[in-house]
């Protein structure tokens, strides 16, 4: 396990200024030894996926609290596929009702964490899933 640390992009998309959760997650992942790139607010799906590719990220976490999750998550999925990066672990969080979370998982979002999710659970998920991908992709 002396390999380079996992690299995770934490992103905020669209007209949504609620960044408290995204920043708390970013810090928790960093405290767990990962390298975290936070995009800042108001990013387009294209910009986010560009960052993911440029940073050679293992995973991407998208935070949406504006209600636009059913528009923006699918666009990021599409962009990742278009960039041949569909294997990058895509997870998300925000104010997302359970039915929508299921629909997003069906589209290929690996996990949706909603308010109240413990930090440990999120960190474990990212470590396990991105670790598995590393083992496959190298």
């Amino acid at each position, binding site marked *: 396990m002396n390999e380079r640390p996992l690299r995770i992009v934490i992103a905020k998309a669209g007209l949504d200024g609620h960044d408290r959760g995204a920043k708390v997650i970013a810090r928790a992942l960093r405290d767990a030894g990962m390298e975290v790139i936070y995009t800042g607010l108001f990013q387009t799906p294209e910009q986010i996926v560009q960052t993911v590719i440029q940073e050679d990220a293992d995973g991407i976490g998208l935070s949406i609290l504006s209600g636009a999750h059913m528009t923006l998550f699918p666009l990021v999925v599409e962009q990742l596929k278009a960039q041949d990066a569909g294997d990058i672990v895509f997870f998300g969080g925000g*104010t997302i009702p359970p039915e929508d979370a299921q629909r997003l998982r069906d589209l290929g979002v690996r996990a949706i964490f909603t308010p109240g999710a413990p930090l*440990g659970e999120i960190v474990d998920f990212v470590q396990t899933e991105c670790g598995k991908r590393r083992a496959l992709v190298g």
Partner: protein
Amino acid sequence: MKRGMDVDDFAPRLSFFFNSHIDFFEEIAKYRAARRIYARHMREKYGARDPRSWQLRFHTQTAGCSATAQQPENNIVRVAYEALAAVLGGTQSLHTNSMDEVLALPTEKSVEIALRTQQVLAYETNVTSVVDPLGGSYYVEALTAEMERQAESYFAQIAEYGGVIEAIEAGFFQREIAEASYRYQRSIERKDRVVVGVNAFTGEEEAAEIELLRITEETERAQAQAVQDVRRRRDSARAGASLERLQAACRDPNDNLMPHLIDCVNAYCTEGEIVEAMAAVYGRYTETAVV
């Protein structure tokens, strides 16, 4: 003031926006300290003579981060205490959050409960009939003095950066807020701080069982259609001319934008068009991403 206006000509119209968190007396002390600091600085630093310039008028919203997804009905109680703290601290107006905002955009029902919470406070409890009811309490006075001292040390730090804008550009505020948010979250997870329904007094069933508002794609389509309809019906020559005048005003540092903005709105320009017209001159703010 740089433009040569007298402070007393506009200071009585300034107002501020505060948040009310769950630590009851700390919040009350925060507002009292803010009012003291404001009055002192307006008098001594800015030379205001009109007593109305010394008065800190403020709006208060209850704290989104204190609301919990678990047992969401408990948020009604949290909001009520936070609103009471704001009133006892002297707020002029309130925004009480709805109990379900942590889960989705609020339903009509939960918005109504939030409004009724204010109305109970305003019309039943009689707390609005007295100014600064906790003035003189040894605890609240001591807490206010401490809050004032710590706030002043923050102001000194900000001054070292060269002012608020410089401190924002350096990521000072962003870092302070991010650190406090992380500290808060860690304290809940370590159980240093009790949050009912989250790390204490949890029930068997944790899933929210309240009805949530659903925003459908139809909502978006209907709104987009409504905007298109407005665009079709308006006098487009007038709208275009108003936007051009707004843009010209943006280029003139001595012009006041407000009359031009009002003119654009009267001409049925959309928010998007108005913002785009301004962004073409000013550009757009990109935040320095600080975690």
